[in-house]
């Protein structure tokens, strides 16, 4: 029962299309689970179900042992589910630091009442968030870009900022949706190092990724999904050796 993220019999269908069919899986702290499978397998949909963007039809999802049933997207984020997006979804009119300052689990200025009654406390909390954000950027060697507009950055760095923003949540559960797509060189190395560090710090990490070498590099175990179902799970090397999966993934 030490699993941080726990899914049991999760089901979701849109009309006749089943995107999640009896999904059961557990991710423990320190573990990096790879979620692989062909396009349309339901990998991103599973992230959307976990985070509450689309509600599950059936099944149970627990974070740190607490069920997220009936909770809205923002409430789940406050329970410690942090995620990134395939296409980043950065706040495009804002700078890197501003993107991150609005991202902690509790944003001090979110309540107008608190902002009016305790402006000093809000100011201190924002200062702390700035420090937290800068230390995350420091780890990614991006601190010098704190005041750049996010849209001015190259793609790979935007991807890193997407991860940096998610890390502001400081949640135990980290869901990464194709963190490596379109990322190469220095940004690739940084991404890999940071994801590894986050797992070592005790977070449960789940990575959707098409880049198999990245998965091999980082994950100890993986889950193979196709058409909303988990077909196989287990050791990453065994999975990749499986013939049926190769056929499904690459065609015959």
């Amino acid at each position: 029962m030490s699993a941080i993220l726990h899914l049991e019999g999760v089901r979701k269908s849109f009309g006749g299309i089943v995107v999640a069919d009896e999904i059961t899986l557990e991710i423990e702290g320190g573990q990096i689970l790879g979620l692989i499978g062909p396009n349309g397998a339901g990998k991103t949909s599973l992230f959307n179900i976990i985070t509450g963007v689309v509600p599950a039809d059936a099944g149970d999802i627990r974070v740190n042992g607490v069920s997220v049933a009936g909770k809205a997207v923002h409430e789940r984020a406050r329970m410690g589910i942090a995620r990134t997006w395939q296409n980043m979804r950065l706040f495009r009119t804002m700078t890197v630091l501003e993107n991150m300052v609005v991202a902690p689990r509790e944003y001090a200025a979110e309540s107008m009442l608190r902002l009016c009654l305790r402006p000093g406390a809000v100011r201190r909390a924002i200062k702390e968030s700035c420090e937290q954000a800068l230390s995350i950027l420091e780890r990614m060697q991006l601190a010098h870009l704190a005041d750049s507009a996010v849209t001015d950055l190259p793609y790979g760095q935007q991807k890193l900022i997407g991860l940096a923003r998610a890390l502001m949540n400081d949640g135990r559960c980290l869901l990464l949706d194709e963190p490596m797509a379109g990322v190469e060189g220095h940004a690739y190395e940084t991404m890999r190092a940071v994801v590894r560090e986050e797992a070592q710090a005790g977070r449960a990490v789940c990575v959707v990724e098409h880049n198999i070498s990245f998965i091999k590099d980082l994950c100890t175990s993986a889950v193979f999904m196709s058409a909303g179902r988990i077909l196989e799970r287990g050791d990453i090397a065994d999975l990749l050796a499986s013939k049926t999966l190769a056929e499904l993934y690459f065609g015959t």
Partner: protein
Amino acid sequence: MEYVYSILILVGIYVVLASSFNLIIGVAGLISIAHPIFFALGAYTSGLLAIHFGVNPIAGAVVGAAVAGAFSLMISLPSLRVSGDYLLITSIGFQLGLLQVIKNLELTGSQGGLSNIPTPIAGPERGWVFSAVALGAATVSVFLIRWIVRGPYGRAISAMRDDELAFVALGRDATRIKIVIFAVGCGLAGIAGAIYALYFQYLSPEQFEILASGTMLTMVVVGGMGSTWGPVVGAVLLLALPQAITFLRLPLAYMAPLQGMIFTLLVILFLFLRPQGLVSPEPPAPLREKER
């Protein structure tokens, strides 16, 4: 002189209305057309309190704003919980429905309007005192909105407007932010209503018709949607314009349609030629050095 005062007072009132409408539609991106009815709620509340209970005018204005803010929850709570688009539909229903109630309720003077609202101040000072109050209210509203938009709360609003899904996935409660902004905007319209009621001492339900939101929208669009000073420029300009036309000494029968045509033409021209309005919106709330 009384003519100048009444124009100054209208400028103050309309700056409050246009700025608060801009907070709702331009800043928060909430599509509502019920602004006139919140103006009416503030006006009728403070008017009735003055008539029946002789309430202090400032207390009356505060209650008027509170009533407008509280009524805003009646449409924002159910519609914003579902999706932002429903706000437009509920706001139309609310605007039309509540005005019918006002037109048929004996308490609010029915079709004939609410008259004999006692003035809190009489004598020669009345004009400039009311002008000062109206322009003061306008200044306070503009700076209040500026404080909201340029500060940490405004930063959250900008992020929400950029990408609402990413915003809520970070743990932000977008619905609550929208409900609060809508209530603040409607409350400010209520204050404008209170000043109107106590100065003009007479309220006719016709002036709060749905078309009045067209006037406010014109001020916002022409002035500059989403910018702090845009609605101020828009309100002053569009109040001055009809006054300017009167100097043409056209027959009265031409005046009203001419005004309507000019307003509509302005909106169309601006939407095509300068959609950002006269005053461009400022960049979103910057993270200043001292906040770090």
